[in-house]
């Protein structure tokens, strides 16, 4: 199963995946508690996105899907971007997602969204990457689009207008 590009330019970035591109649009569709980490180097014009599912990799993580965890996604995405000529110090970063979609009054389920956002911020701080804009938290899901050529990041919630970060 794969995400069908709606206009032929979109590249769906699914749960736990990370992707780097110079053109087209990287899209994380309908994030719930997951977080999209969006990076863009404005000089070499290359963009990368990771679709993070959980905050931290388990102790014996085999490295199979580094985009799945915030703490492994950031270094893996940086490695991928470096391979395309990007320089970490130049990277522009945006975060989106991390909603508490299943917020039960009883607190029966852990708020994975908040933990994901916190872990992504920490991993980016360790890599000395500043976050320029965020659309995180709340209780509604979001679709996030990163234009690989310009670095523009647009976010939309259900029935909400699309906003640029």
């Amino acid at each position, binding site marked *: *199963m794969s*995400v069908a590009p709606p206009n032929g330019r979109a590249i769906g970035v*699914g*749960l*736990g*995946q990370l992707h780097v591109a110079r053109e087209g649009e990287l899209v994380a*569709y*309908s*994030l*719930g*508690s*997951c977080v999209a980490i969006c990076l863009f180097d404005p000089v070499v014009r290359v963009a990368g996105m990771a679709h993070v*599912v*959980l905050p931290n990799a*388990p102790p014996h993580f085999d490295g199979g899907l580094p985009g*799945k965890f915030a703490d492994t996604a950031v270094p893996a995405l940086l490695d991928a971007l470096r391979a395309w000529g990007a320089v970490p110090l130049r990277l522009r970063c945006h975060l989106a997602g991390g*909603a508490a*979609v*299943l*917020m*039960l*009054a*009883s607190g*029966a*389920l*852990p708020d*994975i*969204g908040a933990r*994901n956002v916190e872990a992504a911020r920490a991993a980016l701080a360790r890599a000395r990457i500043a976050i320029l804009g965020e659309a995180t938290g709340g209780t*509604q*899901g*979001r*679709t996030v689009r990163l234009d690989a050529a310009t670095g523009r990041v647009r976010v939309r*919630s*259900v*029935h909400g207008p699309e906003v640029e970060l």
Partner: protein
Amino acid sequence: MDVQMSQGVAWPDVLPCLAPAVEQAATSAARVLGEMAGRDIAAGRVALQPVALADLPLVAGDPERPVVAVHLAVQGATAGHILLALSERMAHGLVDMLLGQPEGTTTELDELGRSALAEAGNVAGSFFLTALAERARAVLAPTPPLVLHDMCGAILDALAAQLALLACEEALVIETQFTCDGQVVDAAFFMLPAPALLGVLTGAGAPQEVGHVGRAP
């Protein structure tokens, strides 16, 4: 698709064992929904499908499609999730049926409408769980219902993350469609059992009491 769960349960063994219980549970849930709505609601196609967690947000089609859903969690070590997902139009129609209003009265979900849907989801989910639990000789109880109005994929994304936290790589998606007065309606009932719950349902795990008891059906 790999037929072996990451937790070591073989799908070819699990699915035939589980299917009759799920069909009976779906019939029970549909019947009680019909009684509440005063309409002839029946369980349609019942599908059991192992899905990689990465694909879970796409399992109900367009992930950006707005839905109204009632979510119930099964708590404890044998965790799982139940979701009654309706298109917005179907949700408004169901509210009218539940409140005895002329069709078309509800155009937006207010507190009363959300409460009616929560009750319907709670009762249907509880009947579904009870029917499964009786077959498995276990006691399974849901959390209180939560009404969600969001992108379908966002709800499933959040459920995928909850299952990933339990080290699941795949989920068994149990999907039931409904018919109302003989017509297939835009509503689906999903159950996503975590591996331990799957073990209980298929007799691989010891019967046990789990979870906090919500409102009784």
